[in-house]
């Protein structure tokens, strides 16, 4: 009892400490006065290349800090539709960008700054001996792919259509990173992911490129958002993306060139 009473006495102090630690965190994004912040919502697959690009951008635009929110394109679109404040949106597929555009959230026209193609990822040593896209349909192969509702799954479906192959994955994941995770952990014999995912996984997976992937080249559009309070800087960020520096960084990550 006595112990409890002591505890009750220090409770307010404890609460104060909790609040004091939590509040600065909640306030978040409170950038230093005088400088401006560019908020970029970008598809998860762009994380490493955009982080590198941001360093260049900040060097070229002193006083501007770039902050990112990386997530699945559909998630980001939902957040934007719910009023999340952002300056730039970079999507991993045209459909998601179209939805954001239909909602009247885009300023001007989106620009396709990169493309991505599918690749087969297998665990190191390729234990199941996958050699081609058709091998994925073989009985006993544990294939993991994306669900058709997400861009990587839609791309896989169009390759299936164009080749007449019927795949029966053991799991249809929500995101390409979940697919990759199941290949890296060795649970799956093969996964259908993007070339850039294989690149970012380093030596943890092996890649088997397949010519049929050409049937589903996925463009990545980016746009300045209508609600941006910093449209000039947002425009400069898109210019950097589409320019030689941006294209070089994206190509190093495995992306194909953009059209604009």
């Amino acid at each position: 009892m006595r112990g409890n009473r002591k505890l009750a006495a220090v409770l307010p102090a404890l609460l104060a400490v909790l609040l004091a630690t939590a509040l600065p965190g909640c306030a978040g994004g409170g950038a230093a006065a005088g400088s401006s912040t560019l908020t970029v919502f970008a598809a998860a697959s762009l994380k490493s290349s955009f982080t590198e690009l941001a360093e260049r951008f900040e060097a070229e635009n002193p006083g501007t800090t770039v902050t990112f929110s990386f997530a699945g394109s559909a998630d980001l679109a939902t957040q934007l539709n719910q009023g999340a404040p952002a300056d730039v949106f970079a999507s991993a597929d045209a459909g998601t960008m179209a939805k954001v555009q239909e909602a009247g959230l885009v300023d001007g026209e989106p620009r396709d700054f990169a493309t991505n193609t599918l690749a087969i990822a297998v665990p190191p040593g390729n234990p199941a001996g996958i050699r081609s896209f058709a091998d994925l349909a073989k009985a006993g192969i544990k294939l993991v792919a994306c669900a058709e509702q997400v861009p990587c799954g839609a791309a896989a479906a169009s390759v299936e259509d164009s080749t007449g192959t019927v795949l029966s994955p053991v799991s249809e994941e929500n995101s390409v990173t979940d697919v990759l995770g199941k290949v890296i952990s060795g649970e799956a014999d093969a996964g259908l992911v993007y070339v850039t995912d294989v690149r970012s996984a380093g030596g943890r997976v092996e890649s088997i490129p397949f010519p049929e992937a050409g049937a589903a080249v996925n463009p990545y559009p980016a746009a300045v958002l209508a609600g941006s309070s910093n449209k000039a800087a947002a425009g400069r960020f898109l210019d950097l993306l589409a320019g030689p520096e941006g294209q070089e960084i994206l190509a190093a990550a495995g992306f194909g060139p953009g059209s604009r």
Partner: protein
Amino acid sequence: MTGGHSGRQAYTGVPRWLYALAVLAALVVVLPLAAMVARVNWANFIPLVTSAPALAALGLSLRTAAASTALCIVLGVPLAVVLARGRFPLLGLLRSLVLLPLVLPPVVGGIALLYTFGRQGLLGSTLEVLGLQIAFSTAAVVLAQTFVALPFLVVSLEGALRTGGQRYEAVAATLGASPGTVFRRVTLPLVLPGLASGAVLSFARSLGEFGATLTFAGSLQGVTRTLPLEIYLQRETDPDAAVALSLVLVAVAVAVVALAYRRPGGRGPDGKAGKQASGERPTTAAAPGGALT
């Protein structure tokens, strides 16, 4: 909820400002649910929740949650009895470890399960020799659900066992009953309400399992894609379907919680208990719900 007529007649010992904060707390829980209900597309509600993928997901969820609840009972009852009655060193440590899934992020549970039952996991190669492949199967879903739900049953039951005390057991033992008989004829009937509420909570937790399933079992219609995973997937393209299915899950959860926290006065699911106990009175000590604290 006796808050309505506080103040004058009876002393309740609740300061008024506490009510204000209590209302705020209730709002934190209720408001988001209400906001979700407000977004339900009622015109399409029936087609949305009766689509083939939705029904497959609901059926799978109910089947796997029932299976993992059964597993929780089979494994959780002995564990709760040992934790409540056992005397051996490191008991406290064991209890903390068993309760860990309550506070662990489910995705961590999924990773842990992966490295236990996965192909490359601790038991994976052994299981493969036996011809058992857990990953990407419905069994993986049941395992993930059992992992997260077991502590609920153990905590409920252990609480009931402790509040119930050991008097009746001691009397039965002095009358010559073997420990096995005491367990079956006295202990179990006494804590049956606690066991029932624990089982219902385990079922609810299993039904809501998401993170560990996604990490460990994968997502395939009819095999591993339970209702929460279906909601997560539908949300990508069809928010209306996601909201409608969420409402189904909320309705099931409300029913389950109502069942688990029924007033002790009402005849609980322990109808059989009185007969089995043959003369033993199931005391109110082991009231359902008094257990989780």
